[in-house]
């Protein structure tokens, strides 16, 4: 048997006949050789699934955050035992995983022994393949020698640090609980401990006060050079510059998305702050990509940049329909055709597991058309793009034949290119990936 044993919980089926995932493994750098027929391709090994653990705790809520996370740390013990129960429920879900991602929330707020214990629980319940990528997300303010030592003991080999900005005003606006200096210190400390694979999260496109006024007055040391928007851009370039100087292996640069009901969204709604316009956002995006690529980072996904070979293996599974198991409140799992997600309330999550129920909020079985649409919008997010041959086999559509006119047109506009059998977005194309998916 060529693939992992998918013993999907609930509606347990994995429709191999209608959707052949075994054909999809094509390495990024080497497009498929044209001589290879589908039958030969399908003998290539499947990619192993990924495992995601959601830690729903934060010390305090950031001003922009729409995630479900809670600040009541007293629930940690109950959460951990619920998580152990959930692991037991899905013990046979896959033979092994080659990535483990512990995200949140803020995993680094867990006490060292809890984090270490949790990883030990995972290793008891599941097989984590040798050489697996094991990532933990951390807040710069939580990084201590003790934490780092415990992570190393647990086999964590990738640290993703939520820096967001190297500008203290921006950090204050975002409601982060660390300063720029703290972040720089933390990163150095991580390096010194011997972590080689370090990723930083940054946010750009922050809102600023309308037309220069208020912000300028409150911060007399800063004379508005041109407009508030220009200053905003300059601040971001400085953050980017600092980040590059720290030489991380991986950078995620997210354009701020205003989430409903967050304090930041409210301030924008009231007109206290305004977001940069779409054209400005596009400038941020393109300029960021250009600067990072010039500094040796590959722009491999809309918001992700990496030194060659340092792309997040775990996240890439999300973009190519590789199965993943997500545990913890609000975590999503995908098993080839079914996606399901857990209750997001920590209480409900714990309650369900204590009464022996799956903590599942809802699930959906994707039809061919839905899978196809996902493959398109996820594929167009990545620089690798969409392998036309694989797409035909997996999703039953010949994109080139169906959409030739549009593809030619968009290539002419510099948004798409066809190279080595891949239909890939250019940098400008990535910025409109969602629309590309609807061609």
């Amino acid at each position, binding site marked *: 048997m060529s693939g992992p044993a998918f013993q999907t919980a609930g509606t347990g089926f994995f429709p191999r006949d209608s959707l052949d995932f075994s054909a999809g493994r094509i390495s990024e750098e080497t497009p498929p050789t044209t001589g290879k027929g589908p039958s030969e391709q399908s003998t290539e090994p499947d990619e192993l699934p990924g495992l995601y653990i959601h830690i729903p705790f934060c010390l305090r809520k950031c001003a922009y955050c729409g995630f479900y996370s809670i600040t009541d740390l007293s629930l940690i013990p109950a959460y951990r035992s619920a998580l152990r129960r959930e692991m037991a429920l899905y013990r046979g879900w896959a033979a092994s995983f080659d990535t483990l991602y512990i995200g949140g929330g803020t995993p680094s707020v867990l006490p060292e022994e809890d984090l270490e214990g949790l990883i030990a629980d995972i290793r008891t319940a599941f097989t984590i393949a040798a050489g697996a990528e094991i990532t933990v997300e951390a807040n710069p303010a939580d990084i201590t020698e003790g934490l780092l030592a415990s992570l190393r003991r647990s086999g964590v080999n990738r640290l993703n640090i939520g820096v967001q900005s190297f500008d203290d005003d921006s950090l204050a606006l975002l409601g982060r609980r660390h300063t720029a200096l703290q972040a720089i210190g933390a990163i150095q400390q991580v390096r010194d401990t011997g972590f080689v694979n370090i990723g930083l999260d940054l946010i750009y496109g922050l809102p600023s006060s309308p037309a220069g006024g208020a912000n300028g007055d409150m911060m007399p040391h800063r004379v508005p050079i041109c407009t508030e928007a220009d200053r905003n851009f300059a601040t971001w370039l400085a953050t980017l510059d600092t980040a590059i100087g720290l030489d991380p292996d991986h950078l995620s640069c997210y354009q701020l998305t205003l989430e409903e009901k967050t304090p930041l969204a409210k301030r924008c709604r009231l007109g206290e702050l305004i977001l940069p316009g779409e054209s400005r956002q596009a400038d941020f995006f393109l300029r960021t990509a250009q600067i990072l690529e010039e500094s040796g980072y590959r722009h491999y996904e809309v918001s992700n940049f990496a030194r060659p070979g340092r792309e997040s293996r775990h996240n890439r599974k999300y973009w190519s329909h590789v199965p993943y198991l997500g545990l913890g409140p609000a975590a999503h799992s995908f098993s080839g055709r079914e996606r399901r997600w857990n209750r997001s309330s920590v209480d409900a999550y714990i309650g369900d597991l204590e009464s022996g129920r799956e903590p599942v909020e809802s699930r959906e079985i994707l039809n061919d058309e*839905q899978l196809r649409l*996902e493959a398109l*919008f996820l594929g167009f997010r990545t620089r690798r793009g969409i392998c036309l041959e694989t797409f035909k086999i997996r999703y039953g559509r010949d994109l080139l034949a169906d959409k030739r006119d549009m593809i030619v047109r968009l290539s002419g506009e510099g948004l798409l290119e066809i190279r080595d059998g891949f239909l890939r977005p250019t940098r400008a194309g990535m910025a409109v990936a*969602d629309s*590309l998916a609807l061609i």
Partner: protein
Amino acid sequence: MDSIRNFSIIAHIDHGKSTLADRLIQYTGIVEDRDFQDQILDNMDIERERGITIKSQVVSLPYCAKDGRSYTLNLIDTPGHVDFTYEVSRSLASCEGVLLVIDAAQGVQAQTLANLYLAMEHDLAIIPVINKIDLPSADVERVIEQIDSELGLDPDTHLKCSAKAGIGIEEVLEAIVARIPPPKGDPAAPLAALIFDAKYDSFRGTVIHCRIFDGTVKAGDIIRLVYNNATHRVEEVGHFLLQRQKLESLSAGDVGYIIAGVKTVSDVRTGDTITLENRPCPKPLPGFKEVKPVVFASIYPIASDDYTDLADSLDKFKLNDASFVYEKDSSAALGQGFRCGFLGLLHLDIVQERLEREYDLSIILSVPSVRYRFTLKDGTVLFVDNPTHYPEPMSIIKSEEPYIRAAMMLPERYLGAVMKLCMEKRGVNSTLNYPSPGRAELVYEVPLAEVIFDFYDRFKSVTQGYGSFDYDLIDYRESSLALLDILVNGEKVDALSQIVHRERARARGLQACERLKEEIPRQMFKIAIQGVIGGEIISRTTISAFRKDVIAKCYGGDISRKRKLLEKQKKGKKRMKMIGNVSIPQSAFLAVLKSDTE
């Protein structure tokens, strides 16, 4: 037959016909209170949503009158809007009388008169019914005065009621029995039945709505449709009690339906006569006047594979809308379609919506046009209602456009605003009357093309809903015309072309570009829109490309949500027409005509 009364309720729009029908229905108790809803005869979704009647509707009411006898009252509720006058005139052919409803507050309006004339043409008994007497603004005395002076009816014959409050309903029922004559006809004579409407039912085939003038028809009979001599065996006959209700037979004087397994939709034509194969009637009944469409537009399926579906649906739709006419047409930009004629813009709007809803079609309508007349150098006279067929400009020696006489009734205080509007619309030869103090009747001669576009909406808004408007086609008048084409990214979209008055060409071109700019969503590339007359670009605008739409984060937990959003967008996009890689929404084609004053 003495116990049958066939009558229609006619009135100006919104004067309360359907509400009065409700009360009559309730009074006779054929519907349980818990099953009742207001304007129960307006059973199409589109009628309920818009609060107007579009289709005439028959219902047979059992009524026990004060004389102690039982009657069958065949009531036909009709639409009030001028675009559906054809529905009214067909209904009247089945009746011996009408209730002419007049709103006590609004008094006599344009369609009150127009419908009265129709009833007179059919020689029907007329009962004026003053409705809405419960309104504080009701002025019954004034309406009685108008019945005399404006309608020329005996003012003593009026009834007063409030359909909403249920006042005066019994009097209305008694008047129907007493004052509308029973149908004439001979049940023993050869069958002569008039088809006044029909509806396609996917299980039973065509359901024919008819009035029997002579003879009798029952299940098992072989009927003949006089128009094409097609014969069918009758499966069922019956009448309408909100639903179809089977009967043993229908005979002279009855209004009901015949189901005869007619699957060939084109066999059935409204206005045709049904008779019996083995005992035909000597001559067919007089049918209906032919409809004269005034607005024309082409219909195309959004997906070209849907063409046969569309063709099939139009056939079936036509059964239920006798005023709708169409023929094959094709467009360079939109492919195979149909050129259709409508009685007005509301009619056009309703047809489009009904086709989409009832037949699950996604369609595009080209820019509506009136019918122009051209005289060419070689003497040929050409009628053109489709800009695609605009003659070679060098060959034209005379171009003419249809004019109407627009009759408007309005409170005097809006006179200034309405006159300004009429002048803007190239109106000429105005006359002004004061039928009663404070109320003005303004008549203008206006090019029809100016009126069909946004005149009606603007008229309503400048008169704040207090004006009424009616029109007659008068003649064709010479006019300087030009063909305005629209290019989208350099490609001519023929469905957006319009024939325009030369003096207004530039303004129209600009307006079309601006409207399209509002209607066409920004896309991944820049879109240039140009208005062109005879090769010369007279207006242009650009829709800039959007540069960023991608969501920043898309990991395991974000994918389903994002997909759902895209699915929604995709659905929206399916309702747009791709022309040269540009998605043009349905609404763009009609929006081109809207002026910027809205």
